[in-house]
């Protein structure tokens, strides 16, 4: 069934590509060119309808502050109001009417940002009817958008908020395909629609994948790619087409004339080549990452981040030189050949080399304790003689993922003017004994461990056994 559907899709793609090719051959600009620019297609046809919920001006004082940019203030204060950080410092005065929280023995940090999640597109329950993360019917499906799979009732969003202090996250298509499709960045705030969870103004990402998954999925169907060289061959052929597509549409939007054929997949790749859409590339092995970096130069795009970069520590210098980040687990290893060389000191070695690094989950359970995952990475680093201060390590949880997502001007640290995406922890967040006590998103208190009414319950769980329970 899936196989037949895949063949039909492939046939459709071939037709579309041949039309593009025809246009390229015959699309000379008429001598009497109109100077009227062509009509551009919408870059944002499913716009965010997110709105922040009301909050009260809040001052948390006498608290240990990790500002998310590497700074730490002991016995400090954080003030936020109207959804924004107002000030951080040693002591701050509470404005009239502010809620004042005593942070004795507690820590305050920016909300955790997970750059790699499948909440919503591989939601709980993990049944076939809700399995919407991999359009595994063709190796190139740059036409699909993760937001069209996201189920906003996934109970996992609430767990990530309450147990993990996660305030924003990128939902990616899966890694069966070389070009998996577009990602979407969400605020971790339940809504009736996916659009109402979309992070306002966040750039899109393109999910790509290296290595074992695409070659296994398509090789087992007797199709290209069945090898790593096949992976790169299909990648290159696709980028070459995207360059042609971009030339045609750039010309049309600039000079007018006959409107070129629309290709939804190529729209996304054109966006990458134009620097509007960020490449988020699943890639485990050091040598494959190096190949991809050259491919990006060959076709004129930039790899924002390698995800699951288990061997990033082997090429930390190369990643730094290419301004490409590594998004990694703390200690996942040994679950397939390309993860065989995973080590716990990966993050610390990347930081030591000055490369951009961050933690990620790829997992509905792991996203609930990314702070603990960073604690593991810190510990592994210290065993290797790399002593990274706790406050610096918080960058792996908020500012670095925010940068890689292009939302660091809005969130990711406790800088005045940024969104008040804030977690108050009931102890040191790098201790196993610590949990979020309160979580604010845009200054709205959306989780409070001490108030059962500030604990989200998705539609799916409502009225079922355990509904409203602590989870």
């Amino acid at each position: 069934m899936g196989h037949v559907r895949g063949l039909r899709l492939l046939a459709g793609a071939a037709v579309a590509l041949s039309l593009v090719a025809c246009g390229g051959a015959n699309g000379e600009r008429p001598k009497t060119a109109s100077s009227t620019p062509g009509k551009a297609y919408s870059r944002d046809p499913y716009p965010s309808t997110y709105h922040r919920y009301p909050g009260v001006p809040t001052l948390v004082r006498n608290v240990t502050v990790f500002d998310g940019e590497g700074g730490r203030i002991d016995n400090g204060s954080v003030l936020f109001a109207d959804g924004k950080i107002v000030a951080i410092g040693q002591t701050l005065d509470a404005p009239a009417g502010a809620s004042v929280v005593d942070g004795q023995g507690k820590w305050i940090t920016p909300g955790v940002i997970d750059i790699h999640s499948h909440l919503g597109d591989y939601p709980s329950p993990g049944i076939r009817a809700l399995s919407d993360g991999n359009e595994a019917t063709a190796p190139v499906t740059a036409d699909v958008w993760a937001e069209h799979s996201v189920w906003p009732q996934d109970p996992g969003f609430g767990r990530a908020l309450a147990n993990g202090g996660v305030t924003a996250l990128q939902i990616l298509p899966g890694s069966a395909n070389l070009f998996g499709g577009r990602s979407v960045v969400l605020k971790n705030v339940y809504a009736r629609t996916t659009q109402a969870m979309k992070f306002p103004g966040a750039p899109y990402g393109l999910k790509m994948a290296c290595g074992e998954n695409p070659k296994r999925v398509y090789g087992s169907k007797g199709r290209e790619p069945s090898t790593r060289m096949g992976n790169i061959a299909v990648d290159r052929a696709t980028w070459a087409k995207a360059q042609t597509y971009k030339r045609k549409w750039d010309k049309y939007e600039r000079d007018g004339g006959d409107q070129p054929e629309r290709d939804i997949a190529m729209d996304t790749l054109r966006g990458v080549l134009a620097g509007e859409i960020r490449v988020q590339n699943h890639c485990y092995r050091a040598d494959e990452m190096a190949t991809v970096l050259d491919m990006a130069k060959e076709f004129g795009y930039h790899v924002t981040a390698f995800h699951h970069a288990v061997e990033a520590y082997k090429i930390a210098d190369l990643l730094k030189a290419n301004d490409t980040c590594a998004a990694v687990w703390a200690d996942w290893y040994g679950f397939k050949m390309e993860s065989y060389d995973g080590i716990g000191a990966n993050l610390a070695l990347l930081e030591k080399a000055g490369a951009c690094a961050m933690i990620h989950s790829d997992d509905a359970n792991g996203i609930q304790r990314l702070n603990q995952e960073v604690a593991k990475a810190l510990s592994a680093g210290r065993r290797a003689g790399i002593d990274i201060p706790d406050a610096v390590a918080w960058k792996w949880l908020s500012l670095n993922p925010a940068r890689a997502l292009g939302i660091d001007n809005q969130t990711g640290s406790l800088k005045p003017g940024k969104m008040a995406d804030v977690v108050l922890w009931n102890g040191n967040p790098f201790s196993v004994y610590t949990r979020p006590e309160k979580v604010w998103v845009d200054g709205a208190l959306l989780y409070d461990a001490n108030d059962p009414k500030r604990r989200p319950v998705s539609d799916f769980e409502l009225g079922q056994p355990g509904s409203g329970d602590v989870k």
Partner: protein
Amino acid sequence: MIRALLLSAAALIAAPALAQTVAITGATVALGDGSAPIQNATLVFRDGRIIAAGSGVAAPAGAEVIDAHGKWVSPGLVAGFTGLGLHDANGIEESNDGSAKGSPFAAAIDVSTAINPTGVKIANERLGGVTRALVAPDTGNSIFAGQGAVIDLGDDADPVMRARAFQYVELGEHGARDAGGSRPAAYALFRDALTQAQDYRRNPATFGGRDRGALIKRSDAEALLKVIDGQVPLVVHVDRASDIRNVLGLTRDYPKLRLVLTGASEGWRVAREIAAAKVPVIAAALADLPESFEAVAATESNVGRMRAAGVQVGLSADGASGGEHNIRQYAGNLVAITRIPGATGLDWGQALASITSGPAAALGLDGEIGSLRPGRRADVILWDGDPLEIESQPVAIWIDGKPQPMHSRQTELRDRYLTPTEGALPKAYDRR
């Protein structure tokens, strides 16, 4: 201090005399039996067994004395149920001995012959503090996965502590799938297999079991008779509350069954019934999502609520992509949730027990492993801090009283790439 300890461990490796008595003094000693840790205590072991542990214990004359002030001592962690030792990586099919879909055998399968003590994960996980594992097969062509083994993670050629230590069966959604599509089909298969095993006992000569179409073979029947007779525990994977009730009801027809539940995501909903049946549970600590329709009521309070109801609990390492040693992080999280209003966790002593004596007790092995009580095998971890705290790490490890190496393939990779760029020679020439 750490270096001195490592040196003394290295010296012990070189010493041939296993009869050496070791006394670790001044440490915070956690026995792993559910009790609170004891400050400034001494642990003594000799000939591979624990002699004494406590605050009033003196180091015997002639003992190798290790000053461990500021450090912690615990029993080695017991990881259950896991595929450790059965594969090099789950996804490497060629060397994965976890299941056998093409085999005509099911209950007869005995994983003990597959354990590879030199697989790199054994050393990696040992370095994380795991000294024993309850190794279970996965199902292939039946609801019966086969016979699991208890192994040690020692740096030697003899990993199997107990072969055929339990039988593993699926009776929830997985069981339904394995049985052809439904829970009733799984129960029909289960009961028919046990009936056939009894037929085989009554008259082996007339028992078929060699036909291509036979549902169970003679060796399957032999394995199942040990289950029916209560000679080996039957580990049943179920999650839904109603499935748990059904499993507890099996003893009406098979009164000698020694049931152990694993999974049990909704165990808290039937905790009193499980406790009354005296059935131990090995459950995932942090499975708090309705990952399937059999886990709708999943919560991190599951283990704590079962324990509070009197159930004997242990934590499962199942699904730990970072490695089995993460069970200590899971146990620590169950202490963490005791501070969350409405949640039920474990106190510190219970939490450590849930990853040491708890899994051992589920299989009736807590007299041998899982605690530092006298007479137990000397599986000992010396930690540089609280064993449940993330930043802590082992600084010395003994299994059966034998000191273990403090490096693994992971530490070698780390050391090779401390500086990523090549020196005078390629990285391939850089090794310890």
